[in-house]
């Protein structure tokens, strides 16, 4: 693993119509993401995390800095239309609002949409659509109309639509923010599945701590700058910094921290509920 899959160098972005305060949405951000990694980008509203997503997908062009994806400089002006297409095929994107990203009136047609755009032969499209739908448990809904599905199901259709294009990396831009707890779980399971089983690089933009805990690595943004970069357990150790950035650590991690503060010895990291249960159980056994 010599060359990183995504390399962000000194990236800055300033919204031009920002007349109120002229602080950039992103400032001097540098980041490297390797193939197959699962990175969560955390930050409260206005931290620049969504701007980052838009920059990665070439919806916005950076004011300063460079983004290199798979060896191609996507900020270069010499980028041809074909390059843009092939990059968008390599890096897929799932958005926040499940209603606003489904194009077709029937689930399977929507999954086929990207493939149809790429000009893939029809029998190959058929095959890939069925595969993607069954991968994300939506095959039985193939003929349904999107508006009759739940939020979580719609997002799974959107994921299937992106995955049918066989991307190497998928960016989730707060894809769970508008869902109920059940829908969130469905989508998170799908994200984990495509990262673990399909070895797809995942960048998950979120403001939920417990979601970020699922990632291999968390990047915390605050006011357009990188605040912390590390594994979930490393990040959650820095409770003070997170609170200053308007973020709260997961409840179970906080519980462990408080127990430690009151003198109870708990050895090990606590990222999710299972860790927490294990730590406390171990300490009770020792006593």
């Amino acid at each position, binding site marked *: 693993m010599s060359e990183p899959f995504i390399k962000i160098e000194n990236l800055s972005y300033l919204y031009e119509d920002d007349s109120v305060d002229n602080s950039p949405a992103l400032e001097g951000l540098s980041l490297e993401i390797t193939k197959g990694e699962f990175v969560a980008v955390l930050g409260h509203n206005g931290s620049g995390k969504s701007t980052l997503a838009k920059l990665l*997908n070439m919806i916005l062009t950076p004011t300063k800095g460079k983004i290199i994806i798979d060896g191609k400089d996507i900020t270069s002006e010499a980028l041809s239309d074909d390059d843009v297409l092939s990059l*968008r095929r390599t890096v897929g994107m799932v958005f926040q609002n499940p209603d*606003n*990203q489904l194009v077709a009136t029937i689930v399977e047609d929507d999954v086929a949409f*990207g493939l149809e755009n790429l000009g893939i032969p029809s029998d190959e499209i058929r095959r890939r659509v069925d595969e993607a739908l069954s991968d994300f448990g939506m095959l039985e809904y193939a003929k349904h109309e999107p508006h009759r599905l739940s939020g979580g199901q719609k997002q799974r259709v959107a994921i299937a639509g*992106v995955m049918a294009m066989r991307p190497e990396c998928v960016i989730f831009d707060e894809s769970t923010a508008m869902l109920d707890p059940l829908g969130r779980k469905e989508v998170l399971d799908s994200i984990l599945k495509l990262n673990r089983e399909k070895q797809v690089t995942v960048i998950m933009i979120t403001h939920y701590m417990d979601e970020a805990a699922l990632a291999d690595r968390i990047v915390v943004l605050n006011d357009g700058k990188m605040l912390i970069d590390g594994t979930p357990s490393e990040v959650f150790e820095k409770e003070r910094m997170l609170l200053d950035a308007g973020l709260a650590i997961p409840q179970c991690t906080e519980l462990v921290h408080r127990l430690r503060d009151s003198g109870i010895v708990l050895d090990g990291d606590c990222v999710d509920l299972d860790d927490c249960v294990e730590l406390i159980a171990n300490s009770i056994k020792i006593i």
Partner: protein
Amino acid sequence: MSGISFGQYYPARSLLHRLDPRIKIILTLLYIICSFMCKNIISYALLLFSAIILVIIGRVPVRIILKGLKGVLFILLFTAVLNIFWTTGDSLLWQWKFISIYAEGLYAALFIMIRISVLIIGTGMLLTYTTTPIALTNAIEDLLSPLKKLHVPVHSFAMMMTIALRFIPTLSEECERIMTAQKARGADFSSGGLIQRAKALIPVLIPLFVSAFNRAGDLATAMECRCYNGGEGRTRMNVRHLRFVDFIPLIVIIAFGAGLITLNILGIGYTA
């Protein structure tokens, strides 16, 4: 609101439902032409008979057909009355003061009623009842695709139609939500005159428009991210290949039309 169904599509399994939508559009056009070729009583009887046959093949309940006709009942009766009282001819049937009814008038009324009903039933059975809106859109795109050579943006129109169909339920849900929200703030949509009611809708329409524009922006981004690049070089998942069987209905309707022309030439029965 989830029960909303747009168009008149009636889901069923029938030959007409399975027929290629492109063929159905051509059939409908030919059928309309046929209905205007009818000139005498036998051909009108045949036309009515063909509509009944269509309903039977299409397996759409008569109840639904009658509901469709109810919408044009006024036009049917109005044209019938006009024809009865205003047609003059040779055989006077009944006269009272200035009102006179001729046999020609009764025939004309009958014919116009048959023609209008058959047009409604025929287009319904061949298109709207048996074809989903999306299949119809795709078929229109296919049939009009030769116009692409003349730089008519056929694909864009079809895409617009598709997106409109996709967002009708979403926006109607949204509209209902906004109305509920405004009602909770004391808005009154159900009293006052026409102008007052129209004014009451402004606080619903403005948020609805704002949200529709936001959705459009999001959708455009999402489509771009999925490599949408206009119609160039696009393929389709479901390509329908026309087989010989698909052409049989065309042969039947052409034969039907030829039969009608023959009847006109022979001039059997009462001719209008």
